[in-house]
């Protein structure tokens, strides 16, 4: 919890625009995952990164272990992108697979 600082806590985007979410880490992380929580409360996997960047459609994520941050870029936002986005990271030196979650970013896409 305290090891992951996620921002912004809330974000409104007009359809077709884009923005970036960010997670800063207070310690060195081994890997990061990004999720979107859907309307039913289920966590949808977006990305798993141990380094570098990954892209999937209108989403792109980057992870810099040395600089202790990860970002999630959304471009050409659509109404169905609305939801709460979470990053979660594994600390180097802690139990393998133990994820530390950010507090989430609530994204609302406006027509």
């Amino acid at each position, binding site marked *: *919890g305290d090891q992951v600082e996620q921002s912004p806590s809330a974000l409104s985007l007009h359809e077709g625009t884009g923005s970036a979410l960010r997670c800063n880490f207070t310690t060195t992380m*081994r*890997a990061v*995952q990004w*999720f979107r929580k859907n309307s*039913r*409360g*289920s*966590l949808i*996997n977006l990305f*798993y990164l*141990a380094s570098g960047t990954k892209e999937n459609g209108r989403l792109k994520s980057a992870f810099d272990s040395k600089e202790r941050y990860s970002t999630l870029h959304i471009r050409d936002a659509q109404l169905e992108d609305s939801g709460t986005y*979470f990053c*979660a990271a*594994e600390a180097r030196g*802690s*139990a*393998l*697979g*133990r*994820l*530390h*979650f*950010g*507090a*989430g970013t609530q994204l609302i896409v406006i027509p």
Partner: protein
Amino acid sequence: GPKVLQIPSHQIIDMGQMVTLNCDPVSNHLYFYWYKQILGQQMEFLVNFYNGKVMEKSKLFKDQFSVERPDGSYFTLKIQPTALEDSAVYFCASSRDSQDTQYFGPGTRLLVL
């Protein structure tokens, strides 16, 4: 994508009773996890489990908690006895490897009265 199922989706019980939360992980996954999310708070790690054993548990994993996966069936979290502060959503997750994507179930909403 791979799906993790959790049963039940909701459970209401009286304080002091026992409850078992069930998780059906992805079929070829070997690592299993429980996380707890109290209303309005962040998701917190409880425990991870591999090869029939607990690998690490957090301070939230009280003595009243136990996990098992008998004969490769459901991965379960048992709380006995329950306390008011156990009210939360409990998420199960699984992964193929310890350094791999974790897939989460939809959660079990537990209310202890």
